[in-house]
C-alpha cells in the first residue's frame, strides 16, 4: 500500500486536502485592473494651435 503523502501546500493529505489545492502546486492568484487611456477610446490629442 502506498503511504499517503502530505500535501506541502495545505494541511491535508493528497486525498483529503483542500479542493482548491487540486494539485500539489500552489495556486496562482491574481487580479485584473485596467485603466483605459485616452487613446484607447479612439480620441486623438488636440493639435496645438499655431
Amino acid at each position, binding site marked *: 500500500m502506498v503511504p499517503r503523502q502530505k500535501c506541502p501546500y495545505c494541511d491535508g493529505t493528497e486525498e483529503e486536502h483542500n479542493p482548491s489545492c487540486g494539485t500539489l502546486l500552489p495556486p496562482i492568484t491574481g*487580479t485584473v*485592473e485596467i485603466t483605459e487611456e485616452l487613446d484607447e477610446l479612439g480620441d486623438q490629442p488636440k493639435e496645438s494651435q499655431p
Partner: protein
Amino acid sequence: MTVTYATATVKTPRMQVMADVIASRTIAAATGTATAGQLVIGTAGLSGGTGVLATITLPATAFTVSGAVATLQGVPLSATASASGTAALAEFRNNAGTTVISGLTVGTSGSDINLNSTSITSGQTVSITAGTITHG
C-alpha cells in the same frame, strides 16, 4: 497599460453611443442572450490557440458597470492551467473565442493582470480574485 479593443464589436458601438448622446438620442439596453466569455492568459506569443496557458471562463454577464468602472463578476474565477510557461499577455474573448480586448499585460505588479507568480505549470490552478476596467 494600453489595451486594444476590437474595432467592430467595441470601438464602433462606443463611437455610436457618443454620437447618439451628442444628438440627444436615448441609448437602449443591449439585446440578445448573454453567453460566457473567457479570460485567456498566455505567453508573450499568445495568438489564437498559440501560447495559451489558462482559459478562465467568465460568468455570462462578466461585468457590471457603475459610473466609469466595470467590475468583474463571480470572483474568484478559476481554471486549471492547460500548459506550462511564463505568463505575459492576456485577452478577453467571447464565447466563440473571438478576441474582444487584447494586449493585456501580465506580471507580478504594475500590469493589467497581476499574479503572485507568472510561472505557470500545466495542471496548476489559476484564480482571478478581482477585476475592474476603469474608463480613463
